């Protein structure tokens, strides 16, 4: 069910090359590069118009990656941990843009935790990807706040603090789209990214992304080996964009379907026990139990397609604020006269 035509062009006539960016300067084998690959593929398949996309990030190896995809789009590499506030401004200033945010676990769960949670609370429309490796890569391997209990650093130090689970927090803050995946599983990651891009509010996707240089050793819980071993997918995920009406039929009870606001659909094919992603408490429970059992539960954890996005609270005019002409935003002379008149009566 990929929308790519035989000539290697997508529905708006662009090739995969049109979605690539500069050459990566990350370490060979870095999980982040794999995610970049999935983002490029997802954006290509979704047929995003590059000029309508704004790429946003904070600081870190992960936050460098927006330079490596969608080279034609505007990009904003903010300061450490503050991408959410930038994103909020961008989204509100031009509601027609598609926002694609990339952050790291340090960027999001340490310095950026407050902004991240307030972004989620406002339900600012964007795809927020956390490239989660449990360490500070760019500063050479200190623990981040998502490091698992008992995980050993290269230095030999062992982390004793509980990991912050960005998915659980996002759900607690009422996020309408929360998923977790693994950089090494593009088959699962791509449909999740495409679905997230179709969601009309904040979509949080936590992608476990091993740091081959500082956190891929024996004893690290976020090494490729360990993640592969403990990856516990909830379901197989397929995404059907609105402009396609493919019918997928599974034996009854074998799968679930979620229809997003733009008409596109997510199909979840059962793996083991049935999982209902519309139940927030169930999702939290699943995450908690997963942690107790040292499992990385991946898949679509929670979805609520109908949550009202931020611009609706603001009752924004349809035209992007950024493109309003002067006459729309400077009231006429009469208004000033009216105000001055009132002030002349001493009514300040």
């Amino acid at each position: 069910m990929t929308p790519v035509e035989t000539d290697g062009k997508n529905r708006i006539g662009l090739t995969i090359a049109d979605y690539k960016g500069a050459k990566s300067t990350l370490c060979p084998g870095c999980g982040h590069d794999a995610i970049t690959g999935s983002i490029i593929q997802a954006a290509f398949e979704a047929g995003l118009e590059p000029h309508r996309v704004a790429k946003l990030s904070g600081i870190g190896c992960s936050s460098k990656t927006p330079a490596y995809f969608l080279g034609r789009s505007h990009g904003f590499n903010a300061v450490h941990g503050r991408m959410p506030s930038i994103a909020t401004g961008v989204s509100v200033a031009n509601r027609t843009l598609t926002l694609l945010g990339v952050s790291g676990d340090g960027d999001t769960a340490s310095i950026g935790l407050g902004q991240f949670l307030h972004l989620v609370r406002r339900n600012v429309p964007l795809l927020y990807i956390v490239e989660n490796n449990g360490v500070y890569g760019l500063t050479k391997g200190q623990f981040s706040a998502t490091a698992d209990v008992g995980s050993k650093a290269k230095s030999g130090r062992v982390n004793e603090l509980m990991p912050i689970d960005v998915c659980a927090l996002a759900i607690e803050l009422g996020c309408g789209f929360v998923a977790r995946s693994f950089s090494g599983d593009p088959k699962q990651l791509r449909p999740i990214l495409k679905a997230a891009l179709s969601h009309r509010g904040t979509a949080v996707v936590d992608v476990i992304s091993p740091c081959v240089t500082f956190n891929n050793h024996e004893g690290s819980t976020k090494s490729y080996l360990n993640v592969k071993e403990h990856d516990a997918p909830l379901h197989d995920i397929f995404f059907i964009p609105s402009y396609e009406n493919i019918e997928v039929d599974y034996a009854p009870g074998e799968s679930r379907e979620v229809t997003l606001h733009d008409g596109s659909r997510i199909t979840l094919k059962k793996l083991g026990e049935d999982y209902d992603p519309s139940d927030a408490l169930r999702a939290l429970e699943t995450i908690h139990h997963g942690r107790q059992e040292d499992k990385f539960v991946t898949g679509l954890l929670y979805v609520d397609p109908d949550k009202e996005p931020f611009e609706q609270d603001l009752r924004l005019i349809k035209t992007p604020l950024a493109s309003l002409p002067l006459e729309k935003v400077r009231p006429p002379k009469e208004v000033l006269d009216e105000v001055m008149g009132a002030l002349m009566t001493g009514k300040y």
Partner: protein
Amino acid sequence: MKATTNDFSIHVATVNGSGSQTANTTLLRTIFQMGVPVSGKNLFPSNIAGLPTWFTIRVSERGYLARTRHNDVLVAMNPETSVQDIGAMGPGSILILNEGVPAPRIPEDRTVYKIPFNKLVEPLVADVKLRKLVVNMIYVGVVAHLLGIDLTEVDRALSAQLGKKPKALDMNRAAVRAGADYATRNLKSAPFRLERRDKTEKKILIEGNQAGALGAMFGGVTFLSWYPITPSSSLAESLMAYLDQYRRDPKTGEATFAVIQAEDEIAAIGMVLGASWTGARAMTTTSGPGLSLMTEFTGFAYYAEIPAVIWDIQRVGPSTGLPTRTSQADILSTVFLSHGDTKHVILLPATVEDCFDFGMRAFDLAERLQTPVFVLSDLDLGMNVWMSDPFSYPDKPWDRGKVLDAEALAKAGTFERYRDLDKDGIPYRTLPGTDHPLAGYFTRGSGHDEKAKYTEDAETYKRVMDRLARKYDTARSLVPPPVIERTPGAEIGILGFGSSHWGIVEARDLLAAEGLKTSYLLLKAIPFTSDVESFIKSCDRVYVVEQNRDAQMASLLRMDYPGLAMKLRSILHYDGLSLDAQSIVDQVREREGVLAR
């Protein structure tokens, strides 16, 4: 002894949350209606209710609006401060004393009027809680009578204010009457009179923050993100009110603006940068502590060259300091806000008209220069009531600066975000969403070249930094120039800015009256324009008047003009009270070796 007419100040001492606000406003408006220039200053505590608060009304036929050191009429309602308040009275002043409130021995040359306020209010209102509020209206009546104000004037002011609430109106009317009647029956006339004039015709009364909000609206603001903090909140809140009224579709309720109350100031400035990078006219309002939190992001905006308008309504620091007192002590920390070679552009409003004007102009400058522009107002200017000429509608369209749209890009055929094509240090930018393959670029706070590509190359880094310095020089020719008043034969120059202006204006007259001629430069912006240098050159010595401890503006001037450094002398005022003329006069006298009389 002959009564002083239309030239005195009334000082009312109460506690906050006691409803004295309405009474004081009524007095203020009454005087304003009678055509006599007036200003009102509110000295309030940093809490919500029950602590001492003072309201001062300056009545000045000559139109002086600054604080006066001594007050002529004191209304002492607050037992907690009455002894101190009365002690501060000047010779020849009069005291309206709430009966039962403690008072020290009062010298002969002060007139005391004891008023049984509580007795007077009892027959008027049954509800005890309500009495607390209404009692204040009684002193309005007393003052009105003593100053010879016709009660119909007070009535007009009252109804203009409470028109919509007939019950409240009647009750307050009655209170005013009660006060006036008691005064008529028991008090001898006072040495101060108010007489009708026509000096406030076509004038307005307004607070600086309100003026700034109006400016922002007419400047076409489309995005405000803020976090509440005294004394800046009223700017954001009156802007919200104006926008709701004039920038929403009356039918659909759709807004041509967005206002976001951020979770803190870091988020507030972040949202502003995101929005203005995208093409909105974005601003935030804050005060000292908030500004300190914006440090990292404003350095980013300087280097990545993103417009932003940041209002700092200065209050007394350091740290939390005195949140409800006025100050001008954020100059140096703001010019150099953030690490590395960061330098910012600052506007310095001195009047409510400046607030309105800069409210618009700050956007033009920020977008033209592609850098944050700070408007440094202060609590005195922002939260007190000022008389002014009405503001005039902008005669120019806005300036959105060097923005290339798809068409322009097609024509140019090339685009480099940070190329200095015009040799003024200002590059061109594009907005996200621009439908042209050349439009996209990558904004970052790390090292970048003219194409906005990442680089660590030493030469390129230096080149970009030198261009930014060039841009800062360009700013000198774009920021509002100072207002200069040269007095023939004056050796002394006075250099001031912001709310100090009003004390200086009055001080210069006083000095002139003593034969000390002064020229005057009212500084409106940083970086300094060329005429600042020439002004200092043209004077033998220049007194830099500022409301901070560390002579911050004088320090900046010394940095920029080492050759003139020795000409600068500092007049400092930093106790949190707005600057009065006398403080300036005394210090100039002393330095000039003139004996105080």
